[in-house]
């Protein structure tokens, strides 16, 4: 009887011990996201009638597919300058150049901001990823800069004018 109890006791003590395996899989997909400051004042560079200019830092993280993938950041105006009486996208040509992309290639040449179409900021090749060093970028987040220039036209009325710009990431 004592032996039986001892065996039963041992069985109870080890009843919660078990071994199992669990397969874990993860699907890594292309992704992209970015961050920009909410406001950028453009300042006249010289007086009188020096161009208005300002630099916008763009921080981003992106991963593109190893085969046939690509990524991009584009820019588009969400509306016209407001209020009326000052610069207009249609007539004043808000321009920008891109520089310093730490992942991918910054846009080449001078771009003209449009309400109707997206214009390039950064192009990222296939198999790209952000941070940690090779094969990904060294910097995390990656960054680029946009240098905006707007002609200081005497026809603008005095006042404060704003325009909202939207930057969009795309990755495959």
């Amino acid at each position: 009887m004592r032996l039986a109890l001892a065996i039963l006791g041992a069985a109870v003590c080890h009843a919660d011990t078990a071994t199992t395996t669990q397969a874990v899989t993860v699907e890594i997909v292309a992704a992209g996201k970015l961050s920009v400051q909410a406001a950028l004042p453009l300042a006249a560079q010289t007086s009188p009638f020096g161009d208005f200019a300002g630099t916008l830092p763009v921080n981003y993280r992106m991963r593109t597919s190893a085969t046939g993938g690509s990524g991009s950041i584009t820019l588009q105006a969400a509306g016209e300058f407001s209020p009326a009486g000052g610069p207009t996208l249609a007539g004043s040509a808000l321009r920008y150049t891109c520089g310093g992309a730490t992942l991918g290639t910054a846009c080449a040449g001078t771009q003209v901001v449009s309400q109707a179409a997206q214009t390039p900021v950064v192009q990222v090749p296939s198999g790209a990823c952000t941070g940690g060093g090779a094969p990904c970028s060294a910097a995390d987040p990656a960054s680029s800069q946009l240098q905006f220039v707007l002609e200081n036209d005497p026809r603008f009325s005095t006042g404060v004018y704003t325009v909202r710009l939207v930057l969009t990431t795309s990755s495959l």
Partner: protein
Amino acid sequence: MKHLRNIIVAAAVCMLCFTATANAQFAATGTTTLSLTVASEAALRIDSPTTALTTATTVFDNYTGTTNFTYKIRSTKTGGSGTITAALTTPFGSGGPVLPSGSTDLQFTCVVSSPGTGCTSAQRVNIVDAGTVATFGTDAHSARAGNSGSVAWTLVNDPVYETGTHTATVTFTVSAT
């Protein structure tokens, strides 16, 4: 066992929450608002940096000449104004025309394209008096490339002047508020 699983799940959820909070400014799109403050400004360019005053006769007719300029201006939308003036900043040298205070020996008339209003009468220029070339009203705007103007000079041909070349400097100033 179930309790332990709940703890692991809760920890995982918290880690996701932390990651989301730390990267809250990152998103698939970002917006920025560009702003600029347009102020009153004015500028001009003298298109004839040297103006020769000449006379066609030798019977003491006045010397005449024309200075051309291009101006840009933007005056304040409400209550703004502007002017272009011409002042004698370096008088003629010894033996040349003397232009003391009140002298009318050197005068000019003006032609100024809109939005400027050129002087309506002859303006004298001497060591004290600057002449008004143009005035501008509120919310005045020149063309993108500027607008033109000119000043037609007249200098009395006084026999007292010594023969030779005499030079003075007139400074044009444009301002806007």
